[in-house]
């Protein structure tokens, strides 16, 4: 750990659990809450309209440590935030006789867009200073507004659509392309053109070893392009602070850079590497970086493995035909 507080803080675990959810007073099935993934999914087929959600929370604090330590007026606060709507809903939790803290956090659909984050902070008076942050939940929860499955979003969007006749008119200009990678917005999207004959069926299909091997090569090619596009977008979108230093991004850009920078500039720490790619982009040297970016993207797309498997399968197929 490379961070220090100017006063003693809790070292024990702080765990947060969502025990129940109500939408407009009606309880949500427990299957929409995943304690394992720490995700709540609020989208329900039967109930697309709701205004108010209520999360019942239970928090376990290291009570013994708290009791023995230098902390007074301990408060336990849950906060639900979403950066894209600048929303912040909080709830003070109360300590029950059973030894945990509980309470309900209410928030409104109108104040949120897609994904809110729920966490818990413990505040206390330390050395006479009130309201000091002395602990936070080990892991935060995710509240998904548009998901039906309470699972962490792990991959980017893959959107199968007919570029010529789909609802996104802008795709019409790409109607002869098999796929397009879009890197704006909340999550990058790979648009697969169902109007491109055979493509989507082939990608979704099963088939003989050779067919599978070719599919692997095709998928690797799409993925490598996607990773390259995402890397370029993530670097291009970097926000700088007043002194021109790039700020570490959030969301998918964070994931992409963390995944690829160690392969792009392996001898630099990840923060030095970010600074370096930013300088290369703004002050020259970007071209020289391209092979490194392609290499990093190919590693993410497992291109070497997929091509090797593909070639092997095809040569075996040729041999058996003889």
């Amino acid at each position, binding site marked *: *750990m*490379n*961070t*220090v*507080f*100017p*006063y003693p803080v809790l070292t024990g675990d702080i765990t947060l*659990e969502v*025990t*129940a959810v*109500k939408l407009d007073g009606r*309880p949500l*099935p*427990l*299957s929409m*809450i*995943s*304690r*394992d*993934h720490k*995700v709540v999914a609020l989208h329900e*087929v039967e109930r697309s309209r709701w205004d108010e959600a209520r999360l*019942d929370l239970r928090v376990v604090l290291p009570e013994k440590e708290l009791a023995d330590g230098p902390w007074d007026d301990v408060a336990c606060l849950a906060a639900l935030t979403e950066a894209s709507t600048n929303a912040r809903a909080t709830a003070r939790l109360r300590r029950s006789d059973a030894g945990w803290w509980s309470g309900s956090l209410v928030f409104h659909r109108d104040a949120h867009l897609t994904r809110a984050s729920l966490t818990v902070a413990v505040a206390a008076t330390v050395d006479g*200073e009130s309201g000091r942050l002395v602990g936070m939940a080990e892991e935060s929860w995710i509240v998904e507004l548009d998901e*039906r*499955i309470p*699972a*962490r979003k*792990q*991959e*980017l*969007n*893959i*959107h*199968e659509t007919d570029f010529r006749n789909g609802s996104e008119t802008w795709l019409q200009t790409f109607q002869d392309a098999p796929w397009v990678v879009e890197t704006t917005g909340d999550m990058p999207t*790979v648009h*697969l053109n169902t109007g491109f004959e055979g493509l989507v069926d082939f*990608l979704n299909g099963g088939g003989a070893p050779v067919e599978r091997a070719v599919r*692997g090569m095709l*998928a*690797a090619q*799409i*993925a490598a392009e*996607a990773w390259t596009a995402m890397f370029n977008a993530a670097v291009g979108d970097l926000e700088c*602070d007043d002194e021109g*230093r790039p*700020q570490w991004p959030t969301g*998918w850009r964070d*994931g*992409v850079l963390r*995944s690829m920078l160690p392969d792009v500039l*392996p*001898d*630099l*720490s990840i*923060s*030095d590497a970010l600074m370096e790619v930013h300088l290369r982009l703004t002050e020259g040297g970007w071209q020289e970086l391209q092979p490194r970016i392609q290499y990093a993207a190919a590693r*993410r*797309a*497992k291109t070497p493995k997929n091509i090797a498997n593909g070639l092997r399968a095809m040569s075996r197929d040729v041999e058996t035909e003889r």
Partner: protein
Amino acid sequence: MVEATDQRQDFGDWLERQLRLRRMTQSALAEALEVTPAAVSAWTTGRAEPREDRKRAIAAALGVEEEAVLRRAAQVLPPSALNWHHRPAHRDGGREFGNAAAFAFDADLAVLAREATQNSLDEQFDPKRPVRVRYTLEELSGEHLRAFLDALQWDEIRPHFEASATDRHKVGRVIAEGLREMTESDSLLLLRVDDYNCTGLTGPDYGDDSKFAAVLRDQLNSHKGRSTAGGSYGLGKITLWATSRLGLVLVNSTLSGAHEGRTSRRLYGRLELPWHSKGGEDFAGLAGFGETDTEPGREGTARSWWADETTTRSLRLEREGRDPGTSFLIVGAHDAAGDAQTLQEMHEKLVRALADNFWAAMTSGRDSRPVLEASVTTLRNGNVVIPEQRVDPAVHQPARTRALSAYLNGEAVEQRTDTTQVAVAYVPLRVPPEKGAPRKESAEHNAVLLVTAADDNDREPNRLVCMRGNRMTVMTRRVTDLPLGTDAFQAVLLAGRATGSDAPEAHAAEQFLRTSEPPEHNDWTKTEDLVTSYVRGARQRIEDFRKDMLVAVRVLVGRRERVKTGGPAVLRELLRIDAHTTGARRPDRYPVVRHVEGSVDARGAWNVRVEVKLPRRTDPWSMTPTARFEVRSGSRPAISWAKLIAGENCRVEQGVLHFEAGATSASFEGVTEVSSHPVTGRMARVVVDLQKGR
């Protein structure tokens, strides 16, 4: 409790026994009373009963109190009338080196608690009241030990133990070890198992219809009391003897129905030794402690006796009140599994075993009482070491207990919306008709399936416990093939009588499931019995039932719809943006801060001590240490150093740290420049990093 249920029968038995005890013939009595021998014979066989005045005369003739004749009770015997009786070896010279059945069980305290308590449950007397079982561990030493051994007539059996303690066979080694430890530590461990509100060991000393005989006379006799029983006093009773290092168990039973006109303090002792030879005489190993039997053909054996309170207390067999039931005292108790050595460990093991096996029987609804109440106490020479601990199922099996009580309270829901809730569903079991039975249709029984969230510390989640009868666990199944992201749960299936239903279908299901159980009663499977007892298709019904219950669990715990695939799997796999969190992590190829500690000094400057981890490299490293203040959002303001002090393996030159070549760790200290703080130091947390020197 009614003392004598069948007076006519009872008087005859009583009279015959009195005569035998006094070695007095029927004609001698006839003579003394001036009646015909035929009249006496009619009394002893129960064909007639004497008038009241005649009974008084009989009392005088026998030399007993009139009251004894009127109540026709057996006599309470003084200790002096008690003896050990050893069974001589078989004439054919066959030798048994220990009760064969005893080896069928690990003499494990957990197994004992399970088997003995199950026996107690099977013998419940008043179905409206709980069965109470109480386990008491007591260590005796010194005076207390000697008093106990005296009451037991230890000196009489000691030579037999010594003769049996041999390293030629396993039982001999166990006995030798028991004796050695008793001598060396001058202590003996007793484990008493009491049950209350149970039938007690009723019936005569011998015979097929006697619970007493079933437990204490015969081996491997499964005397079945009720149809729900998993085999009353079956193999389970052997665990009592197997738990004793000396093969010695004493019994005191309070009977629910009188025998020989009495109900309280029926005592007996039974010792199971291997074949042994003592003083030129061969012994089979089995011995009884009690009254010398004088019945023709049974001479030289021991029969149970009615004890006085003093003897009962000295044998540490006294029971509480008059509630029927039995106390077994295991002399020289041990845990052969070996994981419980101390009194404390044994106590805890018993509590855990009772909770794990009987949480269901101990669980009740708000307005009802449980079937079972259990407790464990630990004593040393009569003094409390661990006070009576009532076994609370909710502590040991929180999820399952919650599931069952929600069901009993009618609070189970179809769909859970809260982690504390319990979901209920019904699993149909179609019970085929029995062969030759009047019922030709299948009976449809609905087994109850309960699901609730597992406790956070549950080490074995996602299990389905199947129960029937008085909520005994038949088997515990693992539920597999669950959708990704299913939260940990516990499930309980109640079938047959365990549902609480008294409907004919429930009884039919109970019977059917029992038939499908192997002798160990630990599975519902396609047994031979099933084929012989039921019409064709019975095996399939069991098969279906097994399958359906798992399907029902998956429905209750699962998500309600399948995941929309979200694009071709082959592509999805390659586009995981959390890829950096999984898979191999490349070791850092650059110096990193491993640890920082520090505080704010009087001037408001941060003083930090920093440890650095260096990757192996022959060239030296040069890095710039940076301090920043943590912020809520955006970039962290950088702080200047007022001072940098080199520690291990480095030197400082113009704000740059030069680490020694080949070193793997280094340290330095830093003091921040107060004038560079954007906020007073004690209001900020500080982050220290290393950057490439520029």
